[in-house]
């Protein structure tokens, strides 16, 4: 796509590009090297700082923390999908008494930062006598926010379908619910699958917010290890270890999203690329321009 922007390079342009390429590589090496040197200079690579990760108990606790992160993610992901479908269908309803509340819920919960939602659950509700574990505060916060974002995704997916699908289904005598559940929703889900999966990456990333509401996930344990004086306060090694686990998990899920997109595209399906999900790990925007649909009406 981008190769249209410039001509095929001739000998002089090739030489210049090579020089620019070498400069880029050198700058990147200098930056990474500089960071590593600073780590080394601050004695962060000393074996004593990393010894703690060889203890079986610490390793087991890291696994448990990763398990806590993953279980919060799993529950929140399923919950978000269910809430997303229900709210999305609610927004498509023909009945105003159903459509309007769903609209309000979606717009409000997309506009409140996830962290504030979690704080309302964890710090706010106990003042009216509802106490809950941090796990549930994290999960409910994630479900409310991501469910609302996914509702818009499902709605956009249904609306992107060719009109004929709806009309043909109605002509066959299917009821409105049947049209939605049997005809429109499956197609919308398939078209939107990359966007849905990339939204699940957002869910996974946002479980890290649980750290702030004392949910015992990976970062919480990194802080705990990092401030244990007996092991030399290895906060940077702990961040590197836990951070790598987080990044690997997210990269894997993003990879799945990419793979699904390629497979669907190869199958000649109409599909909305994951990149059109601009939910920057917490946005979505109150606007409605959150999802940019490519011009449809091609396949169908």
């Amino acid at each position, binding site marked *: 796509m981008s190769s249209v922007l410039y001509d095929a390079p001739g000998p002089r342009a090739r030489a210049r590009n090579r020089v620019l390429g070498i400069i880029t590589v050198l700058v990147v090496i200098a930056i990474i090297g500089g960071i590593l040197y600073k780590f080394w200079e601050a004695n962060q690579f000393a074996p004593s700082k990393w010894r703690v990760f060889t203890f079986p108990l610490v390793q087991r606790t890291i696994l448990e923390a990763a398990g806590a992160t993953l279980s919060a993610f799993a529950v929140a992901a399923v919950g978000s999908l269910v809430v997303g479908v229900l709210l999305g269908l609610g927004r498509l309803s023909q009945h105003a008494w159903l459509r309007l509340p769903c609209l309000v819920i979606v717009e409000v919960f997309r*506009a409140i*930062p996830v962290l504030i939602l979690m704080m309302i659950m964890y710090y706010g509700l106990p003042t009216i006598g509802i106490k809950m574990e941090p796990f549930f505060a994290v999960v409910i916060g994630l479900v409310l926010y991501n469910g609302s974002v996914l509702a818009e995704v499902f709605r956009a997916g249904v609306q992107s379908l060719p009109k004929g699908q709806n009309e043909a289904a109605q002509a066959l005598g299917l009821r409105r619910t049947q049209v939605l559940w049997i005809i429109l929703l499956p197609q919308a889900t398939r078209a939107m699958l990359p966007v849905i999966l990339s939204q699940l990456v957002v869910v996974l990333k946002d479980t890290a*917010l649980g750290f702030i509401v004392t949910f015992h996930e990976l*970062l919480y344990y990194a*802080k705990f290890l990092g401030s244990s004086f007996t092991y030399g306060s290895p906060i940077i090694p702990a961040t590197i270890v836990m951070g790598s686990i987080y990044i690997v998990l*997210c990269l894997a899920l993003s990879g799945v999203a990419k793979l699904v997109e390629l497979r669907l595209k190869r199958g000649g399906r109409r599909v909305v690329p994951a990149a059109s999900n601009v939910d*920057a790990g917490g946005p979505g925007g109150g606007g409605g*321009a959150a999802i940019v649909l490519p011009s449809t009406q091609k396949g169908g």
Partner: protein
Amino acid sequence: MDVLINNSDLFVIGFRNTLVLFVFSAIFALILGTIVGAMRVSPVGPMRMVGTAYVNLVRNTPLTLLMFFFAFGYPKLGLPSIDYLQLAIVALSLYTATYVAETVRAGVNTVPVGQAEAARALGLPFTKTMSLVVLPQAFRAVIPPMMSVFIALLKNTTIAAGFSVQEAGAIRAYASERGEPALVVLLWVALIFVILVWLLALLQRYLEKKWSLTR
């Protein structure tokens, strides 16, 4: 209402710092993101690779983790000490820049191929093709998604509350010390965020209309 009025000092400080985080991070993210976005469409292979690696890596890093590193790790490195607010701005900028870069790149890709081809046929070099022909057109397509990125940034500033920055997300902690009910305080914070996001969304719609493309 009483809670809001009696603690208006906390709310003012909190949301002022939120806006400081938002404005500075938005500016830095815009600059860095445009550079990275340009790298991702440049003719130089290593530049494209570096841009892609940066975007993919940071996009798949939780913002909380970035802030965690800057708040707890950075002070251990013996570098010039900067306060938590500035560290939060660095983390927010680095994170948001990846989304800005992707938006810029997507915007460049919306410009029809013929435009760049015509510019090249006229003999314009890459820099002029971009600055005179492609980017002015991409700019219009970029406005709505870019506003979504900034709305996200505004909401993401709350994460700094977990790392010793006295901004909107931290109002609850300070108000609780005064014995205010946490739920009411948090609901006020949430309401103010809804209003702020709604204002940004209005601006987004206005700009979208003003610069909308008929193509």
